């Protein structure tokens, strides 16, 4: 039977913890909170215990909603309700993080930040309904390439594709949009409809040929690009595939689902929500790619006592691929090990 075993309990934040980001190459994670700080936690190579190694608390005036490491692990971006996004650099020798740049432009709360696979682009989104694409120019400069204003409401989350320059955004308008670039021009290539309430979280699988989304409608949906219709190209139109919902798990949680994480190491999916639960879902091996089947293999209640669970993230390192981090309204971050006995 599969289960999640508690590995570590990380305390130190003094307000609700909103989001978690794992470092791409080190056993280290960043968490951000309503206490306006980011905490960096590291695994001690000696005894294997986890502890706080840095507190970044001098860049944002309000809640820090989201954080993300660049693919090379050198930079950390943080998005705040103070309408700004900060980029921090890690000093290789001291391991200390210093604020390198502050990205301004959104009218109000920035809710999510994501680095593209190459690390050359950054995306942010806000309650102002826009998605911004930023280009990294030189050591510490960021230039806004595009302001995308097609969502009708708040944009809750942005997530880049794991290999391509393709961006997904999730919104309070109940939709997900897919954005692509064509000759320096960023455009919405598809709008994914089906959720009946705010879409809070999205994540791609390892290869990026599937997208998972979670919502206030308490469903987990899976989407795949439909490449079967390609006659548009002969007519001179853009040949972007349409994303099709290939599976929906109804009533997965009893209240709003806030987060979804798709492990790039072992393909397992984890979700977390306002019903205090964390779930692990696995795709059944021998299923048709266009009609995949999924099974809920772990259902952990009261993962953070009687608090909402706001974030869930699988560790991206092969060595620690069974580690799952969760963050809650109880100000605590927990690390769990997925065990199948």
């Amino acid at each position: 039977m599969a289960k999640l075993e508690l590995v570590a309990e990380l305390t130190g934040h003094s307000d609700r913890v909103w989001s978690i980001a794992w470092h791409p190459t080190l056993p280290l994670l960043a968490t951000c909170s309503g206490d306006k700080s980011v905490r960096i936690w590291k695994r001690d190579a000696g005894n294997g215990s986890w502890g706080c190694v840095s507190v970044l608390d001098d860049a944002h005036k309000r809640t820090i909603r989201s954080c993300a490491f660049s693919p090379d692990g050198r930079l950390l971006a943080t998005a705040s309700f103070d309408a700004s996004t900060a980029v921090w650099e890690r000093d290789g020798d001291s391991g200390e993080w210093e604020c390198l740049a502050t990205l301004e432009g959104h009218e109000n709360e920035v809710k999510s930040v994501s680095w593209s696979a190459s690390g050359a682009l950054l995306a942010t989104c806000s309650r102002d309904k826009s998605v911004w694409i930023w280009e990294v120019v030189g050591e510490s400069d960021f230039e806004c390439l595009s302001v995308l204003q097609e969502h009708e409401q708040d944009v809750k989350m942005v997530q880049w594709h794991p290999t391509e320059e393709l961006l997904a955004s999730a919104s309070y308008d109940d939709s997900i949009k897919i954005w692509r670039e064509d000759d320096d021009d960023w455009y919405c290539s598809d709008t994914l409809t089906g959720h009946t309430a705010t879409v809070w979280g999205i994540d791609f699988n390892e290869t990026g040929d599937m997208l998972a989304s979670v919502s206030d409608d308490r469903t987990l949906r899976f989407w795949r690009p439909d490449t079967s219709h390609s006659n548009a190209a002969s007519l001179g139109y853009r040949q972007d595939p349409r994303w099709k919902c290939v599976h929906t798990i109804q009533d997965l949680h009893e209240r709003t689902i806030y987060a979804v994480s798709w492990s790039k190491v072992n393909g397992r999916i984890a979700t977390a929500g306002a019903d205090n639960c964390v779930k692990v879902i696995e795709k059944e091996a021998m299923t048709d790619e266009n009609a995949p089947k999924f099974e809920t293999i772990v259902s952990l209640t009261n993962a953070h006592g009687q608090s909402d669970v706001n974030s869930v993230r699988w560790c991206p390192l092969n060595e620690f691929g069974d580690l799952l981090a969760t963050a809650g309204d109880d100000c605590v971050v927990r690390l769990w090990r997925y065990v199948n006995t």
Partner: protein
Amino acid sequence: MSNKLNANPVIYEVSKNVGRIRKPEDEDESVADPFDSEEIFELIRHINDPEHPLTLEQLNVTQQELISIDNDKHHILVRFTPTIPHCSMATLIGLCIRVRLLRSLPERYKVDIRVSEGSHQSEHAVNKQLNDKERVAAALENSHLLEVVNQCLATTIDK
């Protein structure tokens, strides 16, 4: 405020209950003491309307019958009725109720706040905003808005 949306609201007689009548089981320390709708109503009935020097109870915006509780699931649903269907204060009133309960109830309670069905022309939008925890968290970091909420809650000081 010279241009009130609803200049002459109907004023309702308030419940004579000055506080909760203690029941025998309230004194028994050995049994669990779950919340009932009367206790929740007691917490919100004295909230001041943002526009009028009257309480939400006097304007019939809050009613005990519109509160439902599931103590097993720690779930509380509070519905309220704006005085007029185009009331632009509906979100603010809902926010006041939410903040009042946030500050008074144990953390384990999950609270949903909705306008009562058919009582507001933007019912869906108001409900959606009031139950989005991120929007509520951001609103409460706005010092001006927080001040307005605190003014409405000034009349609910615990006795």
